[in-house]
């Protein structure tokens, strides 16, 4: 199908990134000191290790976001092909969205959207 277009897009992306990196490496200013590699914490060296057990609320937040993000990603190809499929497409996407709305309502009732 449109493979030529796809390959061009991928190649442009790769070439742009690599070219930017190479040009900067060749002509940009260089300086390195030990402190540049350390994390920034308002000027004070960090305390303790970062590999500690994190609060589970962050995970919940991330999972919910991911779900709705993937839903959005699925909506894009549907929007492209809806003209060819007609009314059946509307019904099927309606069912898809309904399932996700039930999931959101369940999460809301269970209090997953509050921070505890």
């Amino acid at each position, binding site marked *: 199908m449109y493979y030529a277009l796809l390959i061009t897009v991928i190649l442009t992306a790769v070439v742009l990134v690599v070219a930017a990196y190479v040009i900067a490496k060749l002509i940009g*200013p260089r300086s390195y000191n030990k402190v540049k590699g350390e994390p920034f914490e308002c000027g004070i060296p960090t305390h303790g290790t970062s590999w500690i057990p994190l609060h589970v609320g962050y995970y919940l937040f991330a999972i919910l976001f991911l779900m709705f993000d993937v839903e959005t990603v699925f909506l894009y190809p549907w929007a492209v092909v809806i003209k060819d499929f007609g009314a059946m497409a509307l019904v099927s996407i309606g069912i898809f969205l309904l399932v996700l709305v039930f999931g959101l309502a369940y999460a809301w009732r269970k209090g997953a959207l509050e921070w505890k």
Partner: protein
Amino acid sequence: MEVRKPVIKSIPYDEFKDNETLEKLTKELQDGGANVIVGSLDQVVNWGRSNSLWSLTFATSCCGIEFMAVGCARYDFARFGFEVCRNSPRQADLIMCAGTITNKMAPVFKRLYDQMADPKYVIAVGGCAISGGPFKTSYHVVNGIDEIVPVDVYIPGCPPRPEAMLYGMMQLQRKIKVEKFFGGANHKEHKPIVVNGVETYEK
């Protein structure tokens, strides 16, 4: 090619005070001569750099309030390109040290300067940053930040008026406009400066 003078729009070259330092600096940089193409590219890069210097929000004491006033509606440094103040040193080009640096703050300030990405510039705002100011005789004050970091522009005053701070910022813009970028200027080794037995900076 003769040396071009740095131009700030609508302010004549002779109105600025310290032109001799700038001319000496330019002569040093252009010692080997510059050919037309590289010189023009240099000017493009310098134009871009000098007109979009974003400074770090760094204000320790009274001069910080005048710094905020310069940013606000009446004096507005955004029209010079200093659009926003970045909060992280990795995203900032310029550190305007407004306020006294004490002995306890000195390592913090050094660390912030080290964490900034090149090219970076330092402006010492106010008497305290230039030499310790009214607190020179104190037991806990660093007598001038040029003992710790290389300073490009000094703005005297206690606190300097906002117009003085804008003038200092314009001087920094002129200093940047005479820099060299292409032709290996960035890869020269600079020797570190040693203070108190500690290497303080490499530029």
